[in-house]
């Protein structure tokens, strides 16, 4: 895992585009959202990123650096449930 100084989360996203990121949150913006953090690791898929969270305490942000669906795909997410 990479351990560095806190930096803007947007900057980390741009550096690792197309990867899942594990970031320790160190500061928040005026809306209470993660603003800066320390990159703990970058991974090729969601599973690997979440498995790595097992060893990290505190406020951690797991995110994908890129679009929510691959290029050329469409998403239809509508759903409801019944008991």
């Amino acid at each position, binding site marked *: 895992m990479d351990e560095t100084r806190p930096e803007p989360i947007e900057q980390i996203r741009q550096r690792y585009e197309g990867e899942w990121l594990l970031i320790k949150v160190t500061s928040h913006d005026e809306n209470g959202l993660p603003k800066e953090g320390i990159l703990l690791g970058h991974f090729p898929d*969601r599973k690997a990123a979440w498995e790595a969270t097992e060893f990290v305490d505190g*406020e951690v*942000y*797991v995110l994908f650096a890129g679009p*929510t669906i691959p290029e050329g795909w469409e998403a239809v*997410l509508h*759903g409801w449930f019944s008991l």
Partner: protein
Amino acid sequence: MDGFRFDLSAPHIVVPVRITGMQRVRWVNLVLDTGSTSTVIDELVAFRLGYNLESAPTVSVTTVSGTSQASIIVARQIFALGMTVDEFPVLVMPLPTQLRADGLLGLDFLRRRNLFCNFEKGILLTLPSSRGFLHRLAIFAQIFPAL
């Protein structure tokens, strides 16, 4: 009033959400989905938050492509779009790997406040529900300059 910017070029409106689970606090990105009646997270996320899905109750979930089963957990706290909700039920199911977000922020969370979306500027505003005429007027006075 809470205002958020979203990426106009992105395929979804993605909302950072802080979930406090049984053992841990995690920030995740959820897709804002007014078509989903419930908020949903991926199985792996729930497991890492400290939930045991084997003992969790289940429900039937209907989607456009069919039906499936989902577990229900209760998040100790959820924070998103300026709102904090304690003891919030969340559905848990495996999400497709092609979806690069950890779940959906559904209507059960969104309907707690009024939501205004400007797709030209990429601005999302949330406001408390209006109680009377003057309150509504004050809210609109806040909205228009922001939008």
